[in-house]
C-alpha cells in the first residue's frame, strides 16, 4: 500500500514539475530526426521509437504520459518512429558519459548498497556472490550521488574538455556540457564532421581519450628527445604523468608498477634531480641503468594518471538514447542541467540541479547513507521518521530508501 502511495506521490511531484517548467524542457536540435523514449512509472517499461513533428506535440505528449525519465537519440534518422532496422540512420552526435561508476573514487563508494531480490536483505557493502541470509544470487544495486564521487566525475570531465578542446580542436560552442542528474556529466558534440563517424572510428576516439593502446616506444623516450612538460597532446601528458608519478609515488606504488628494485631505489634517491631535469630534457636519459622496459612501465603509470575515465559503451554506440536536458532523473528527482564548459568548476549539483525547492515532507526512511542537499548534510538514517526539505525527501523516495507519510506544503 505504502509503496503504491509512494510511487503515486513521486509521479504527482513529477507532474507538478512538468506543469510548471514545461517550457524549459528544451527539445534537441534536428528535432524531427530524433527518436524519443520515455520510461513509464507504472509498468517500468520503456516507450520507444517515438517521433515528433514539433516541440508543441512533444510537450503535450510529455504532459500526458508523465514519465519518470525522458530520453532522445544521439542519432539522426530518416524515420525515427520505425523499428531499428528501418529507421534509416543518417548520423549521430559524438557523446561522452562520465559516471562515477567508472571512476575509482576516494570514497570507495561506501554509500552504495545491494538488495537481495529473493529475501529483500539490504546491506551497504560490496555485493557478495551469494546473499548471506538466504543464499540468493540475484541483487538490485543501489548507488548514491555523493559529493566525493561527483567531484571525481567533475575532474574527469574537465580533463575530457581539455582533450576535446586542445587535441580535437572542438570549440567551446560545439561542446554541450550537462550534469546528468545522478552521478556524472555528459558532453555532446554536435558537429557536421563527426556526425557520420562509425562505431569503429568512435572507438578510436575513446582509445585516444583514455590513452588505450598508447605505444610508449612511439613517443621517442629512447631517443634524446623524450616527452617534455610543455609538449602538446599525449606527448605532454606522458611528461606530466611521469613527472607526477616519479615525484609522488610511494615505494609501494613503485613496486606495484612492477619496476626493478634498482630502478625503485634510483627514483627514490634522485627525486630532486629528477624534478630539476624537467627544466631541460627530462629524466629519460638521466637515470643510469634504467632500461626501456622499466621506462615503459613508468609511462604506463603516467598514462593511467592522465587517462580520462569515460563510459566506453556510450561513445561507441551510434544509436544511443540519452537523457533530455531539463527533464528529471527518476532515480534522484534532480534534473539534467546544461552549463557552459567554463562554468563546470563552480557547478554544484546539490544546489544547481535541484528541481523541487519548496516545502517539507515527512518520510519513513528505511535505510539511507549520509547524503548532501542544498549545502546541508543529512543522515545516515535507519528505520526512522524524518522531516526533510522536498529535494532531500525526493532523493530518498526516488531511491526507494524511504516511504511517504504526509506532505506539509509551505504556506507562502
Amino acid at each position, binding site marked *: 500500500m505504502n509503496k503504491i502511495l509512494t510511487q503515486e506521490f513521486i509521479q504527482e511531484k513529477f507532474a507538478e514539475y512538468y506543469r510548471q517548467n514545461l517550457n524549459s524542457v528544451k527539445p534537441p536540435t534536428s528535432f524531427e530526426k530524433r527518436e524519443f523514449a520515455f520510461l513509464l512509472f507504472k509498468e517500468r517499461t520503456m516507450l520507444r521509437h517515438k517521433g515528433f513533428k514539433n516541440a508543441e506535440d512533444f510537450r503535450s505528449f510529455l504532459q500526458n504520459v508523465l514519465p519518470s525519465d525522458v530520453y532522445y537519440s544521439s542519432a539522426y534518422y530518416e524515420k525515427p518512429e520505425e523499428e531499428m532496422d528501418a529507421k534509416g540512420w543518417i548520423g549521430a552526435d559524438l557523446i561522452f558519459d562520465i559516471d562515477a561508476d567508472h571512476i575509482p573514487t576516494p570514497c570507495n563508494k561506501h554509500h552504495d548498497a545491494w538488495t537481495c531480490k529473493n529475501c529483500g536483505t539490504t546491506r551497504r557493502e560490496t555485493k557478495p556472490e551469494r546473499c548471506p541470509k538466504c543464499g540468493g544470487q540475484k541483487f538490485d544495486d543501489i548507488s548514491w550521488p555523493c559529493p566525493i564521487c561527483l567531484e571525481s566525475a567533475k575532474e574527469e570531465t574537465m580533463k575530457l574538455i581539455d582533450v576535446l578542446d586542445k587535441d580535437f580542436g572542438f570549440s567551446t560552442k560545439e561542446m554541450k556540457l550537462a550534469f546528468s542528474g545522478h552521478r556524472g556529466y555528459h558532453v555532446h558534440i554536435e558537429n557536421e564532421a563527426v556526425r557520420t563517424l562509425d562505431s569503429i572510428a568512435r572507438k578510436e576516439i575513446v*582509445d585516444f581519450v*583514455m590513452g588505450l593502446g598508447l605505444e610508449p616506444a612511439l613517443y621517442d623516450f629512447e631517443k634524446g628527445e623524450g616527452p617534455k612538460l610543455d609538449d602538446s597532446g599525449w606527448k605532454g601528458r606522458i611528461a606530466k604523468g611521469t613527472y607526477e608519478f616519479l615525484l609522488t609515488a610511494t615505494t609501494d606504488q613503485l613496486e606495484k608498477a612492477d619496476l626493478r628494485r634498482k630502478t625503485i631505489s634510483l627514483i627514490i634517491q634522485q627525486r630532486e634531480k629528477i624534478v630539476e631535469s624537467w627544466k631541460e630534457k627530462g629524466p629519460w636519459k638521466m637515470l643510469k641503468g634504467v632500461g626501456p622496459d622499466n621506462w615503459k612501465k613508468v609511462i604506463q603509470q603516467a598514462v593511467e594518471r592522465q587517462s580520462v575515465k569515460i563510459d566506453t559503451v556510450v561513445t561507441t554506440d551510434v544509436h544511443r538514447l540519452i537523457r533530455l536536458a531539463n527533464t528529471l532523473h527518476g532515480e534522484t528527482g534532480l534534473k539534467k542541467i546544461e552549463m557552459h564548459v567554463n562554468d563546470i568548476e563552480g557547478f554544484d549539483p546539490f544546489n544547481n540541479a535541484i528541481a523541487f525547492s519548496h516545502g517539507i515532507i515527512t518520510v519513513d526512511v528505511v535505510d539511507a547513507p549520509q547524503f548532501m542537499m542544498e549545502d546541508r548534510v543529512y543522515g545516515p538514517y535507519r528505520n526512522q521518521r524524518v522531516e526533510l526539505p522536498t529535494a532531500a525527501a525526493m532523493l530518498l523516495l526516488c531511491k526507494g530508501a524511504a516511504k511517504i507519510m504526509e506532505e506539509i506544503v509551505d504556506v507562502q
Partner: protein
Amino acid sequence: MQRLDLRITELDNPEYSRILERAEKRIEEAILYALVSEGRGSDEVEIPSFPIAVMMVAATNDPFLKRRYALAEAKRIYSILKQENRQKLNEVAQVFNWKVKPAKTEAAKSQTATSDFTLHFTNYLKNTSNLRESKWKLVNRNMLNGEAHLTKDEAARLLAEEVRAHVEKKLDIKIGIVLPKAVTKRAERLKQLFLSRRGQMRQEEMPRETVLDAFPPCMRQLYNMAPSGRHISHIGRFALTSFLINSGMPIENVIECFRPASDFSERMTRYQVEHIAGDRGSRTKYIPPRCDTLRTHGICPGMDEICRRVKHPLAYYRRKLRIIKTQTPATAPRA
C-alpha cells in the same frame, strides 16, 4: 567511358580486345598475387581497362573477389603515389575532399618524425580503420587542434585506403544491363580461377562441437563468469553470445549459459540470442567484436602467445583448434 567514346555494347568488337585483355589481367593479378601491376601499355589501353575490370568483377557477384580486387588496386595506387611529390598528393587529396594542409614548419620542427601534412582527424579515422599497426592508432599520432600529422608516405598510404573504399563502392553496384559475351565469358573464367584459389586458401570448417580448450582467454573468462551468476556487461554478453553461436554451439545451450545470471529472463535472453544468431530481426548473424574493440571495453584479460598473432577471437579459436588437432594422434600428419 563517355569521354573515351566507348560503348559497353561494342566491347565484343575485336578492336577493344587489348583493353579487355588488360582488364582481365588486372583481375587475374589481383587473384594470384593480391596486387595489380602498374601496366606498361599505352594510356588508351590502361585507362579504360580499369572501369572494364570493375564491371567484370561486379559481374562475378562474389563479395570476396570484390574485396580482393579493391585491395589490389589500392596497392597499385599506393606504389604510384609514393613516388609523387607533396603538391601532387595534395591535389589527389583534394579530389576526395580531404581537409588537408601542408604542415607548418614550426609544427614540423617540434616533431621528431618529420611531418609533411596535417589531416583533419575525421578524414584520418575514416581511412585508418583497416590499418592495424599501432602507429596508425590515433592515440599514437601527433594531433593538435583536430589535425593529425602525417608524413608524405603516410598520406600516400591513406589515399590508397580511400581508393580501396572507392573501388569497393563501385564494385557494389548492380549491373542493370545485359553485358556483352566478351565480358561475361571472362568474368566467369575469373570467378572459377578465384574459387579454385580460394579453396586452397580457405581454412578448415568449424567442427560441429564447441571445443572449450580452444577458447581465447577473453571468452574463457566470460564463459566461466556466466554460470557463477556474476554480472557481465552488455558488450561482454554480446561478445560471448556471438562467439558461442559462431563456434557452433546450439542456441538452447547458449541460453542455458546465462540462466544463473542475476537478471536472467528466459524470454529476453532467448530473444537476444536468437537475434544475434540471425533468426530474428535483420536476419544478420553477428560475429563477436574484434580484439581491439574488446580491449577498449575492458574485456580483454591480457594476451597469450596465440593472441599476439591474431586480431579476432574467432581467428584465435580456429588457430587453436588446428593446434589441438595436430597434437591428437588420429589426425597427425603422415610421415
